[in-house]
């Protein structure tokens, strides 16, 4: 009977269309935004590794080699990479313009074991050990530049890679600091400047990183930053755990080891610098960036929860109208002994069918749309210059369109629940109707 109601009442098509449209919109938007957030997290994870023992201070911290030796001896560590991080002025040799950038000194092989550094390269992807050897002259000291600093993307977000790295010299100037935080070259030239030769680009998929980082050989970065003294310093140790180690457990173990290490180093000359060091998971380390994206996702989820509320209201109105039109039917059914529960069941089943069919159509059309979303966006851009996501902000090539089954499940269950919720009150009202109220024709 619910089927008959569904097929025969034109108004039920409206409810069905409203549900299908809502499901379609939510599936498309949630798939894209979930994909963006997921990709963003994955890229952050790849860029950082699992855990970071590091300091925000540009002075860095000493005794890192001792700590690395200690944790390399444990059974839960897959790889460790010491990193020097600082700020620098970077200028192309024949240019007058200096740009403020962040430098990151890494040992490419070790760093690639811990992070996705090797995968982000273009020319040296398959030969990470030569990352800092320019192909045009391997004897020169090379540097890897964030891709957005070196290549221009077209409007569709694609890079035009060069077949062979362009010969270019970059002058990198840093302010070296002593272990006490003073300028190491006070009274002299203040800055350390060294020339590096462009060897490759790094495409991490993180817009800010790809536009502001230049990667240098570890020792060279240490020298530039004044960290290569008798007691060498770094800014961070990036760590990757073995695959079976849970992130939280691994970070806790590292934190415990670090705590013990700091205790042991008490009394050493530069031990105070160790107090600025924290142990963080990659999520906490990149919290400032991830949180913004997650907030965007949360806001969208709330917005679409409001769409869900609208669906409930539409279904409510439709059912209210159906019940108003069908009050005579309710009277007839009650006159032949149908119970209140059966009446609620009848309309609930009707609502369930509307929800189910609406979901099926909404999901199917949404899935089709997602399959073609990148082509649709290209078409819109070519003809109208309209782009859904500014590639300079989102650092994406294609719009993510892989439907997350878990998200899909939540959408379907929510849509059906919304239909049942919208139908409940009218159904309950219908169930309460007295047969004589609805069948009356000359009641007296």
């Amino acid at each position, binding site marked *: 009977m619910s089927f*008959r109601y569904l097929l025969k009442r034109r108004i039920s098509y409206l409810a069905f269309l409203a549900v299908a449209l809502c499901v379609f919109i939510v599936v498309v938007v949630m798939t894209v935004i979930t994909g963006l957030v997921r990709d963003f997290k994955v890229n952050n994870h790849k860029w950082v590794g699992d855990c970071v023992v590091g300091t925000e201070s540009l002075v860095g911290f000493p005794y890192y080699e001792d700590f690395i030796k200690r944790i390399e001896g444990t059974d839960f560590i897959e790889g460790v990479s010491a990193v020097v991080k600082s700020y620098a002025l970077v200028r192309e040799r024949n240019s007058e313009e200096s740009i403020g950038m962040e430098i990151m000194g890494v040992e490419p092989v070790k760093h690639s074991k811990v992070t996705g550094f090797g995968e982000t390269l273009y020319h040296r992807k398959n030969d990470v050990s030569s990352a800092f050897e320019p192909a045009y002259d391997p004897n020169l000291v090379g540097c890897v530049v964030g891709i957005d600093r070196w290549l221009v993307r077209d409007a569709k977000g694609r890079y035009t890679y060069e077949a062979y790295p362009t010969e270019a010299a970059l002058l990198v100037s840093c302010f070296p600091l002593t272990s006490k935080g003073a300028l190491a070259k006070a009274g002299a030239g203040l800055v350390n400047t060294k020339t590096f030769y462009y060897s490759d680009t790094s495409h991490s998929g993180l817009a800010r990183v790809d536009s502001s980082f230049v990667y240098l050989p570890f020792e060279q970065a240490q020298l530039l930053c004044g960290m290569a003294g008798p007691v060498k310093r770094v800014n961070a140790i990036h760590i990757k755990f073995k695959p079976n180690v849970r992130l939280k457990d691994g970070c806790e173990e590292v934190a415990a080891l670090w705590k013990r290490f700091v205790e042991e180093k008490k009394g050493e000359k530069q031990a105070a610098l160790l107090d600025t060091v924290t142990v963080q998971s990659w999520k906490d380390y990149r919290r400032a960036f991830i949180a913004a994206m997650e907030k965007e996702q949360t806001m969208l989820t709330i917005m679409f929860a409001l769409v869900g509320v609208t669906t409930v209201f539409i279904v409510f109105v439709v059912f209210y109208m159906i019940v108003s039109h069908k009050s005579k039917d309710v*009277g*007839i059914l009650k006159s*032949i*002994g*149908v119970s209140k529960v059966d009446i609620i069941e009848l309309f609930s089943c009707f609502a369930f069918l509307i929800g189910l069919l609406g979901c099926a159509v909404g999901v199917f059309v949404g899935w089709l749309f997602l399959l073609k979303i990148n082509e649709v966006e290209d078409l819109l851009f070519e003809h109208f210059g309209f782009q859904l996501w500014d590639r300079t902000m989102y650092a994406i090539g294609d719009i993510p369109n892989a439907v997350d089954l878990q998200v899909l499940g939540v959408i379907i269950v929510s849509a059906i629940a919304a239909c049942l919720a919208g139908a409940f009150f009218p159904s309950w009202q219908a169930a309460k109707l007295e047969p004589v109220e609805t*069948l009356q*024709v000359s*009641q*007296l």
Partner: protein
Amino acid sequence: MSKDDFILKAEGLYKSYRMGEAEVSVLRGVDLAVKKNEFVAIVGVSGSGKSTLLHILGALDRPDKGIVRFQGRDLSRHSESELNRFRNKMVGFVFQFYHLLDELSVLENVFLPAMASKGVIGWLGSRRWARSRARELLSELGLSERADHKPYQLSGGERQRVAIGRALMNEPRILLADEPTGNLDSSTGNGILSVLERLNRAGQTIVMVTHDERIAQKAGRIVTLADGKIEQKSTGA
């Protein structure tokens, strides 16, 4: 006559309705007893309370005061589910305006009471029987060819016969008909009355409400409702 001879008995029924500020007393102490296999016609002018009385007898409405006993049991003591079962199994209603469900076919309208009394599982088990019984009834009512039609494709007389078929689906002890010919022309109405007479001859107890004395003459007994009371009792056909 022992009290067991009565299938349905109403004692001192009162019912009133509020119409704006005024309270209108419709039934003012109605007593009525219906014997098994009887064909009783309740007559009265429009607004005399005939339909209200019929609704109360069939548990579609409750009296303000008074008792309705069905096979000796007070209906007011029935729980809601017992009343549903009573309406489903014990009585069959025939309304003046047929009250068929437009979304269902003629056949489905007829077997609807059988469907209503079963759960999904129960219905799966008995639907073959229900379909067969509904077809049988339609055949008896001369509507075999109309089984797959929708109610709106039928004439008034045919619709009323479908309504009678539906009322008889669960073999009720008593058939309550509210102006069954009130919406039909004379010859079609006579056809419906013939059906009711035939059913009564086959043993079906019938209580029919009508405002038309001529139609009431077809019943075995006529009771007149006036001023909210049974005024006179007379013998019909």
